[in-house]
């Protein structure tokens, strides 16, 4: 299948170079649809910020690639997979949309992945975390850009182990997502020789974590891993501070956190927390520069999801420019061929299963005294190199990988 595809692409590329015709862009417009949650629980980490990031990427090309104007359209999937699916179908069938970007919420992303695969449209995922997107449900046109649950969980597990924290206790959200975070981390920690002291499962949307934290405290573990997300994590962290858990020597590790969560918690409650990030605005001049421009438009620093949308859109446009067409097969081939090089990712590369490999970072939240100003939140403890940060494509279960 893959060889056929490659051969086909090679032939087409050959044909493309043989006839030096003008760029082939369907309906003469490159239309990028940013589809995400603009009103619900993911609105802060993706939302309008992702649209701004996509526009910034297009502006760098003068809103024009391969002789065709670039247009950004936006929609709110309201965290409903069926709205995401129908919007995506509508965009592709009647709206002339060539690329769909972002799509937080795994159910929505998996639905859109199915549609873009059928209809041969590029899908740039920044918001979702499900590893199935580059595993069993991978697509030749789907690119998983920013992070995934494996990178967040296993990355944190390994990095903390290397910091000498070997005994874990999990506070896990009791549904597929939380369980998979716990499982990935456990696998990693155990494979390195660490132990798991226990785990407690809490229902999604728990407001009060005190009883679970009490059990974690009593377990004598070095690290309490929070295998949950969003409001659950935020509440757990806040109450851990109240019960003096970090002060008593245990570390708290978020297995899926974003800078927007830290911002919401405030440093007082979040200090000392460790987790994995795909991007931090205060890494070097390039990231500071871009984030400053972003902040001017959005009023806040970018999350890794928003920065990832920028990077993915930019890489896509680069590939269109190089392929001189918006034909999905050719562009997808180009995207896999070209290295990803921008302020978000250095020497990033796209694997056969669509996973974009780039460095991740283990960060620790600063104390209020260490922080010098607004949004000065992280100490980067360790850079996790790209090849250990993500799952080996061979083990992903993606049929595109041989």
């Amino acid at each position, binding site marked *: 299948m893959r060889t056929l595809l490659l051969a086909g692409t090679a032939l087409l590329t050959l044909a493309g170079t043989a006839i030096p015709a003008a760029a082939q862009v369907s309906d003469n417009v490159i239309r990028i649809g940013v589809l995400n949650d603009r009103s619900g629980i993911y609105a802060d980490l993706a939302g309008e910020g992702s649209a701004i990031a996509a526009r910034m990427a297009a502006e760098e090309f003068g809103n024009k690639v391969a002789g065709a104007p670039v247009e950004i359209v936006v929609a709110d999937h309201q965290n409903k997979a069926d709205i995401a699916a129908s919007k995506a179908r509508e965009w592709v069938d009647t709206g002339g949309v060539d690329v769909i970007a972002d799509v937080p919420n795994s159910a929505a992303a998996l639905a859109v992945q199915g549609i873009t695969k059928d209809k041969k449209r590029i899908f740039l995922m920044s918001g979702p975390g499900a590893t199935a997107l580059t595993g069993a449900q991978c697509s030749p046109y789907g690119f998983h850009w920013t992070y995934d649950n494996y990178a967040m969980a296993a990355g944190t597990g390994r990095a903390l182990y290397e910091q000498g924290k070997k005994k874990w206790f999990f506070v896990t959200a009791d549904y597929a997502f939380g369980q998979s975070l716990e499982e990935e981390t456990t696998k990693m920690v155990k494979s390195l020789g660490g132990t798991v002291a226990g785990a407690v499962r809490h229902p999604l949307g728990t407001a009060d974590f*005190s*009883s679970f934290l009490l059990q974690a405290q009593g377990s004598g573990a070095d690290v309490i891993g929070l295998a949950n997300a969003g409001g659950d994590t935020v509440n757990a962290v806040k109450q851990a501070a*109240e019960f003096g858990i970090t002060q008593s020597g245990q570390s708290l590790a978020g297995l899926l956190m974003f800078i*927007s969560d830290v911002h919401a918690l405030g440093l007082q409650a979040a200090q000392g927390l460790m987790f994995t990030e795909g991007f931090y605005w205060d890494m070097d001049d390039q990231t500071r520069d871009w984030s400053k421009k972003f902040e001017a438009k959005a009023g806040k620093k970018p999350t890794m999801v928003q920065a990832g949308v920028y990077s993915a859109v930019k890489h896509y446009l680069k590939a269109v420019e190089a392929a001189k067409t918006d034909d999905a097969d050719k562009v997808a081939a180009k995207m896999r061929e070209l290295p990803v090089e921008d302020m978000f990712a250095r020497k990033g590369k796209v694997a056969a299963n669509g996973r974009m490999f780039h460095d991740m970072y283990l960060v620790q939240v600063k104390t209020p005294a260490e922080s010098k100003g607004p949004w000065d939140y992280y100490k980067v403890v360790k850079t996790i190199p790209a090849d250990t940060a993500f799952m080996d494509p061979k083990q992903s279960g993606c049929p595109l990988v041989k």
Partner: protein
Amino acid sequence: MVSLLGIPPQVLFGQLLLGLINGSFYALLSLGLAVIFGMLNVINFAHGALYMVGAFVAWLLLTYAGVGYWGALVVAPLVVGLLGIALEKSMLSRLYKLDHLYGLLLTFGLALILEGAFRHQYGVSGQPYPIPDALKGGQNLGFMFLPNYRAWVVVASLTICFGTWFAIERTKLGAYLRAATENPTLVQAFGINVPVMVSLTYGFGVALAGLAGVLAAPIYQVSPLMGSNLIIIVFAVVVIGGMGSILGAIVTGLGLGLLEGLTKVFYPEASNIVVFVVMAIVLLIKPAGLFGRER
């Protein structure tokens, strides 16, 4: 170590205490619902949203006006109460002659608007609210570490709950209130302004929700979504306790908090289903609720 059903007693006591803390929130919220239902025959779906507004008012006061926790404890319930009176006067009062279900539907719409508006304005991740300095730290009770703030929450809400119960069941004002629920026309004939009393009751009920919001702000994140799941549990509490029963709401709230605490020890996965299971059982045995009477 002595253990009870495989659980060390220290853990058990700890969890029961924590259950009591949660229960006092349930009690405070279901009390407000019960007061409103008793007087207006309206199930206030906006109760969770107004609880959220209470927490947000506290946060806004701290952030923009520099008014701290203790100030917010007074001001926020007042603001929420006034908002409630305005809503009652302008909208709810038009529906009393109709089926009570319309009150439920109206407040459902209001809850959507309030939550949506705050979500639109402040995002969903929520805002941090610190524990007041006087209540920082905690006590080591031997079997667990009890943060001072939690202890304060229990004391404060129990005081308010039983104060309200006393005011309604044992004072003259309470007698008027109870009379007006039974026969508004007759009470009106005695020269008591029933519509004003109804407005004030609604204001008082939602002010309790606002107060619970302020109490919750330092523990939970001040977030637009904080009330939306809680409200359904509180509904179940009110159904179990018997609608409109003040004492029933308080006792059931606390009892279910304890039960939930126990479930978290023995089978945590079920801790947010247990309330609904209890509700189904109670309804099968005693359809009017534990403290309710058939109407």
